[in-house]
């Protein structure tokens, strides 16, 4: 353990522990996962807070994300500039939200952002179409997709304004008990 500790100072680790749902060991493990993605890019010493970003191409190639249809959205949502390139902080943030311990509301907030493709703080019909296409690999016909979107809006849109706000989404999530266990990436 002694050699590992030099990656972060004690305070840094403590801050990470307080800001994520991970234990010290898990943080170290995640750091090594992160470091392994780009060994020549990421230094083994983080005490000086280097400004390093791992490009999306590498993040997206992680086995946990590789086949996820939403991998691009996930990385975009959690990265600073929305381009998918991630710092270590972003990386830890992402897996913290996707961890088992994260509460429903936090998960719902980020899930909402992930499904909100055009970042306008509402899930509109266009976002829904994108989601459905990604989910079904374009197997449904255009008519079916639009029917599905219509149906979803019909079911979940609480205030009938033709799009899903965060509140609508959270309300819907309350009714979907599976969400907690499925919005989860194991590390």
């Amino acid at each position, binding site marked *: 353990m002694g050699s590992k500790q030099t990656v972060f100072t004690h305070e840094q680790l403590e801050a990470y522990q307080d800001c994520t749902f991970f234990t010290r060991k898990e943080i170290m493990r995640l750091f090594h996962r992160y470091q392994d993605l780009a060994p020549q890019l990421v230094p083994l010493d983080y005490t000086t807070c280097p400004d390093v970003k791992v490009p999306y191409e590498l993040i997206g190639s992680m086995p946990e994300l590789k086949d996820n*249809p939403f991998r691009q959205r996930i990385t975009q949502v959690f990265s600073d500039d929305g381009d998918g390139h991630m710092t270590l902080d972003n990386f830890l943030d992402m897996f913290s939200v996707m961890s088992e311990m994260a509460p429903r509301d936090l998960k719902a907030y980020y899930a909402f952002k992930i499904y909100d493709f055009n970042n306008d703080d509402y899930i509109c019909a266009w976002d829904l179409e994108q989601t459905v296409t990604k989910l*079904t690999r374009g197997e449904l016909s255009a008519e079916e997709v639009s029917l*599905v979107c219509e149906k979803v809006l019909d079911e979940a849109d609480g205030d009938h304004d033709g799009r899903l706000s965060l509140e609508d989404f959270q309300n819907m999530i309350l009714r979907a008990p599976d969400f907690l266990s499925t919005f989860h990436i194991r590390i």
Partner: protein
Amino acid sequence: MKSQEPTPVEKKACRRQEMLSDAHVNEIIIEVENVSAGVQRHPSLNQVFQEKVLLDSRINMVSSISDIDVTDSQRVSKRNDQKDNRVLRFSTPLNESMSQTLYSLECMGIDTPGSSHETVQGQKLIASLIPMTSRDRIKAIRNQPRTMEEKRNLRKIVDKEKSKQPHHILQLNCCVQCLQSISQQATCFESWLQAYRRSKSSLSEILNSISLWQKTLKIIGGKFGTSVLSYFNFLRWLLKFNIFSFILNFSFIIIPQFTMAEKNTLQFTGLEFFTGMDMRDTVMYYGFYTNSTIQHGNSGASYNMQLAYIFTIGACLTTCFFSLLFSMARYFRNNFINPHIYSGGITKLIFCWDFTVTHEKAVKLKQKNLSTEIRENLSELRQEKAKLTFNQQLTRFSAYLVAWVVSTGVAIACCVAVYYLAEYNLEVTNTRAEGRENQFLKTHKNPGAVLLLPFVVSCINLAVPRIYSMFRLVERYEMPRHEVYILLIRNIFLKISIIGILCYYWLNTVALSGEECWETLIGQEIYRLLLMDFVFSLADSFLGEFLRRIIGMQLIKSLGVQEFDIARNVLELIYAQTLVWIGIFFCPLLPFIQMIMLFIMFYAKNVSQSNIAIYQFCSNACDLLRLKLGKGALRRSQEAGPGWGPSAAALAADERGLPFSLQVSLMMNFQPPSKAWRASQMMTFFIFLLFFPSFTGVLCTLAITIWRLKPSADCGPFRGLPFFIHSIYSWIDTLSTRPGYLWVVWIYQNLIGSVHFFFILTLIVLIITYLYWQITEGRKIMIRLLHEQIINEGKDKMFLIEKLIKLHDMEKKANSSSLVLERREVEQQGSLHLGKHDGSPAESINPFIFNKYEPDSGEQDGEQVMVLPV
């Protein structure tokens, strides 16, 4: 125009800052006063934008100066030399501590310039974080949907504030001082608490590291998704249960028994392992335990085996009861938060993508399943209107009726068969026991006869559910969900009634048959049942599922491919656990056996589920075979498509042809179970099942045993007593002679043994339940009303937006007609505006932004007050 110096309103704002600590108004009011002349003199939109930024930065500044002094705010006013007359009236619920933080807030990233709303939220957040205990605070910080950087800064600021807080007390009046001094003490404790928390978190780290099978579970989740994972989680949960029971039994019953140093007579041959017969004189069974009081040395400490036995088993069951109850309650709370609007829907399909699935093939499969499911859902929607004719309804109804009658009949027939077989079995054992000396040869000729009953029971458990699942060919439910539930109900009925009839037989026949040690007999029987069940399910998962896959894949295509049947597997687990609970009294080591079995089962199921190599080999072999058979086979495989879903068939028809179709079928081997399995919903249901028929049934059985039955005269810890419960009675009697323990006697007589107490308790509980029920009813009405209100608010919003847009258009028209000179400007702005709208539709509708960006809405007189929801 008029703002060469601080406007009066700005002064007002400054004054406000001074009074901030007293302000208790819960909103910010940004008052936008539109004076037409002033606005129209704006040279270009750019400036308006600048102003906006400036305005926002001023909001930040204004907030930042609150605790500095007035000169600062004057500086702000100087910076406001721009001509504009937008007034900020700022009144937030800032208390002392909050205004302290405002400055520091400026340093951190929370308030991006341009969103005053955010800033205030950040301030509020910090203010609310400060009085919390450190644990709650960390929890709250963690739960913030912010980036790491922001969270870290937030944490730093709050910590700083926390440490600063005692210092500021001096400035406050004495009443507050009192309060604060308490909090000062609290901050002293804080460091202790933090140390405690650290040690706790390191403890949980250790516990995490020993938690079983983390990695395997990840792989399973990656391949099969959450629903299969839930089976394994359930298994792991049961395993923990059994480990706990075993440790309890081992330390309080078995170790003391070992210290008695009575010889465990065990002759071990192959068959005895299955029959459990010759282990009768070991710690395995009830009959071996002593009824004496163990006493070592002259210390006077004694250990009463009778009491130890009954209390340990009792403690075991009580713990099981509570942990079951709590986990059940937790699942119920999570899953039925809003039960009356709980319904299936397409929305859940869309937004509940299983992020745990990481295996490439599994992802593809999942997507395919999902699209099929969506199609089904859509077709259901379309079909909803289509009504069946009377004749069709009649046939369907009669099919259901027949299926129910047949399934119930089969279950009853099984029960009857089991009962008579058991009685016959008892006779056989009887004759054997009597003829132990003179008919020695005969006994040894047929020692496996006792295995007949468990064999038959296991066969029933194996075969009948499969017959049941064939009923779907007759019944044809429209909704797959209904089919699954009905299948489940029938299977539970079958298993529970078999266990029930066995219990009846044990308690009513075996216990009263005058056997020399009937408890041990029951223990042996349960042991055999359990073991046989285990062997069967092992064989089933290795041989049966494997064979079926081969058959399903290659020979009878209509069978389709095997999918992991969660319901059947979980029911098997529940069945075994019920047996263990019943048997724990007669055979204290049963949890240990079950522990080992579950452990093996985990790996067996795991392997049988992901046994890629074997299937690959098989399908390769068949591949060759089919190549020889030529294209005919391919066509047949496509015709057999329905089982695979239309898309798979379509894929199989791909020009890649044969190998690809095989690949698809291979993937189908890893088929995550059909859509009806919504994992968490199922877990709730399973735990409920484990609780309701299973555990409560066990409690009833054991209660009857303990209160009603006479323990056998010559063996076991309760020998010689009229009832098991008499051990407790006599213990109480001995206690009442000792003055030091009179409180125990009092508790026993007045609380546990008293009918009146229970009567009153029941009454109180009933009243509370009734009140809660009424409250729930009230809440339901409330929820409905609130829901309606949301809808109305939405309508209001739409209406207002429409109005605003209309107004906006009118103004534009008025502008263009009346002020020809400024038309060009307006158009310029308008086009910019439009561009903005295109970029983000939200802003075009959001009334707040709409108004703020609106330089040419100046024609309209009067004020528009926007109240930001804070």
